[in-house]
């Protein structure tokens, strides 16, 4: 529950569009992990919330559909893809989506 507050506090510092992106990304990952969004914390890795390689590919598809963006991600080399789309944690994924939305909807 304390995490919820932290998330809210972080989110409140952001412009509303970005707060919205964070919430939507969290909702997408939570649905994939079969968790409540409130159980998914920014510092969580995908492994920690039970998302495997297939789940990751599905999550990226859902993110592309939700935000109408192209995510440059190749499952063969997540490390090389990390520059454009860092999948280390929920927070890095959110940041990457925010950046792609900015670039691709400019």
């Amino acid at each position, binding site marked *: 529950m304390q995490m919820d507050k932290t998330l809210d506090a972080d989110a409140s510092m952001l412009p509303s569009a970005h707060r919205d992106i964070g919430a939507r990304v969290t909702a997408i990952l939570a649905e994939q992990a079969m968790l409540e969004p409130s159980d998914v914390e920014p510092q969580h890795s995908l492994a920690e919330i039970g998302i495997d*390689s297939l789940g990751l*590919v599905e999550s*990226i598809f859902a993110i592309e559909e939700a935000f109408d963006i192209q995510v440059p991600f*190749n*499952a*063969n*080399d997540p490390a090389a893809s990390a520059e454009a789309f860092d999948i280390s944690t929920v927070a890095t994924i959110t940041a990457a989506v925010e950046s792609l939305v900015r670039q691709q909807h400019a």
Partner: protein
Amino acid sequence: MHRVVITGAGTINALGHDVPSTLAAMREGRCGIGPLSIRDVDRLSVRIGGQVTGFDEAQHFSRQELSLYDRFTQFALIAAREAMAQSGLAPEGEAALRIGVVLGNSGGGLGTTDDNYRAVYEEGKSRVHPFVVPRLMNNAAASHISMAHGLMGPSFTVSTACASSNHAMGLAFQMVRSGAAPAMVTGGSEAMLCFGGVKAWEGLRVMSRRGCRPFSRDRDGMVQGEGAAVYVFETEESARARGAEILAEVAGFAMTSDASDIVMPSQQGAERAIAGALADAGLSAGEVGYINAHGTGTAANDRTECAAVASVFGAAAERVMISSTKSMHGHLIGGTGAVELLACLSALRDGVVPPTIGYAEADPDCPLDVVPNVAREARVGAALSNAFAFGGLNAVLALRAG
């Protein structure tokens, strides 16, 4: 139990429209992968493939035939024609009643499906060509080969994704070895390079946009190909009685299931298939000079396959040559094992081991002799051909020089 030999081979693929041109390309380490030329390619993010180019279907088939033949059937018929001509097998009477066709393919007439979905969904048409079903069905290619060559024995199609052809040829081998059939026509065909066929693979994010570089540290995925290869398998007695040239002996076969994950490969499943094929052939690992790898160029396959080979071969792993010809012709999915068997014939018969091209940098996870970039001359007495499919289905063939 009969000894089983190969007396005919035929192919059409990105490297050539017949066996001699394909073997020459493999010897030269030529790359058949290039920009895709298909409808709506601009809406794809993966725009390369091992496409059959310079192919005019009207030169091979009549208008009436073409109305019934999807591209995968055309490829299969062209390859079968070459294999039957080389073999000289002309089944008639009692024998024709017992010889059949086992082919592997995964997508069937996917181009036909794609075209006609487009017609009804995108273009809003309410009517499709009357032969859509006989064109797209997975067994169309096997059936048309049976008709073209009067083969009235057991014919069917095997569909196990990337292992389809190896499963098909393995079953044909078992049927001839057991005496169930005096000869079988077998191999595989695939023609998935259409908009829907590439788009579906894009979704899985395992495709490379640059090229297929198996075992190389900088590899970044697979590249699709298309085409077919077809063989005549028959008993050694029959081949000798006819005076047919023996291209190689099919010596063993094994298949296993990982029973673990729908896409991630299992080292144990691959190991059991490799060890099983050796045991079935009565070969020791030390006798095997060449392995045609599954070698898709994905991170997961190449690492797992090398670990499996190293584990089964032990000390012999340091001497065996293992290459992935997918680097040249792409991944033919259901047809891939059939085209790759040509690399084994090259090694066993011509003493030329085809290379893994596009190899730039050693990967500590793949510490085997992958015959980088340049073909090698070597005397090879026995060879293996690996196929490890999505779904965790593994099929490995063992061959001996004829």
